[in-house]
């Protein structure tokens, strides 16, 4: 099957190095301490952050740090076929763990000892790159909640099909069986916090694909930064003189 046409267009009309349209919204859930809605093409996720609050289970309390918990769930109608077991299955548990460890690396947990920060991500529509969309949404939600962080965390995926590196795979491209590299970075510090790849790839091509994903992450970071700046201006304006 041809994923990149001879003219250099992908199945949805994008160029190989073009990302899908991204859109983020802060404050999607009124009841949460911080929340955000993030869209990457047709993948739509909502993230809500509750915390820092009291630890639910006293035995899990850490005396010098905050406890970070994360739960990733997919809505029943989020994929093409109705999902029977939206959480508690292996994939959801693995992604919950990945998101937790990624965010934990950048939250300044030592500032909030004996407390708990809950990050809940709900996938409303899945079209590839849910992991990345969830991390981006979680970053926005944590910023909205005012939780101190070292840096933003942004994430993007890239692949390699028909001998071309492709940025931001959608579901069809992801299920094609080619390699799928997901990268999460701290943009200002220029450090990689998440790196996952499946399928085989020669080392030199891997470098290219990873670099492409990092560029994608940086572009998302710029967008997120603008969004947060705009949001802060709105808050300042509403607060008055």
């Amino acid at each position: 099957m041809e994923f990149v046409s001879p003219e250099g267009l992908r199945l949805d009309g994008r160029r190989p190095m073009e990302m899908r349209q991204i859109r983020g919204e802060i404050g999607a859930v009124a009841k949460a301490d911080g929340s955000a809605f993030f869209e990457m093409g047709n993948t739509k996720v909502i993230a809500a952050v509750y915390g820092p609050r009291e630890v639910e289970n006293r035995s899990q309390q850490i005396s010098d740090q905050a406890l970070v918990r994360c739960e990733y769930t997919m809505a029943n109608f989020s994929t093409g076929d109705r999902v029977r077991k939206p959480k508690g299955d292996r994939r959801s548990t693995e992604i919950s763990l990945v998101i937790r460890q990624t965010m934990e690396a950048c939250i300044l947990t030592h500032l909030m000892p004996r407390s708990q920060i809950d990050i809940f991500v709900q996938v409303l529509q899945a079209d590839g790159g849910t992991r990345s969309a969830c991390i981006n949404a979680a970053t926005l939600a944590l910023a909205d909640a005012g939780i101190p962080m070292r840096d933003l965390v942004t994430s993007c995926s890239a692949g390699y099909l028909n001998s071309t590196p492709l940025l931001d795979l959608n579901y069809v491209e992801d299920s094609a069986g080619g390699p799928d590299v997901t990268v999460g970075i701290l943009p200002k510090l220029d450090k990689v916090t998440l790196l996952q790849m499946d399928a085989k790839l020669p080392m030199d091509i891997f470098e290219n694909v990873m670099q492409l994903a990092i560029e994608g992450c940086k572009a998302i970071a710029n967008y997120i930064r603008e969004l947060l700046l705009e949001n802060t201006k709105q808050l300042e304006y509403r607060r008055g003189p």
Partner: protein
Amino acid sequence: MVSANVSGDLSSEMEVDAFRRLFPLRYHERFLLDSIRPDARPLGRARDTSLALGAVASADGSALAKIGCTTMLAAVKMEVMTPPKESPDEGSIAIEFYMPPICSPLVRPGRPAEEAPVVSKQLSDTILSSGMINLKELSLVSGKAAWMAYLDIYCLDADGSLFDAALLAAVAAFSHLQIPVVSLNEDGRVVVVSEENEEGKSEKEPVNKGKRKLTLSSLPFSLTCILHKNYILADPTAEEESIMETLVTVVLDSSGQLVSLYKPGGPVLAYASAVQDCIALTRQRVKELKSILNEAISDMEVD
């Protein structure tokens, strides 16, 4: 953060917030004496309601309903199944209501919300008993194939009146529903015809080409009210629900007939007159909701 050294205005502001947390009932009663509520609504008015159809592109029918801050996302997905022997000409509907942890600080993984199964059952009973959907319309081939409609409703933000918002979202999702086109393939099984199979179209004749939308008769709409002493508050927020616990939910259909009445106990005992007042408030609300739904449907058609 407000410090105690700032001018008198700010420190009295902090006292109001503290008063609200420490003595919530007295705080609300101060407003009720003036026939108004803390968010400046008169007692009988519901919060701003909005509806958006087609929120989930991958579902066959979907809607996003917001009443104030309470947000519900409903989506219908259709699957083909074999009908049971007792009712070979009827399809079936399965309704599920979820409250994921994002919706409220009180819901945590491992500690699910108390209201979720209650609202789920209420919704299921109301929709099936209201006769909104004729199950015979969901039949494809008598005795062999029928539609199973899975309606999933997710609460994205829980701020009171969960049942009202969920019912509105469910009704809107069914109004938006487009039944997929199916045809019989060689094995005699019913398959969904996808738009890509251009070559196959000549051999497989669609079984239900003409009929793509359900005819919905008598749409149910509801209003939840709270009874407190002799006040009746329509469309409570989560804060009001937690302090004044007597809820009455009235469901009327679009022709004004009573579909269901639900008063699950509570400290206030209501006279029949109070229930009549609730029904009157619901009647007004049904008019509002009908016009909101029609507007949302016509917006979709313009697109």
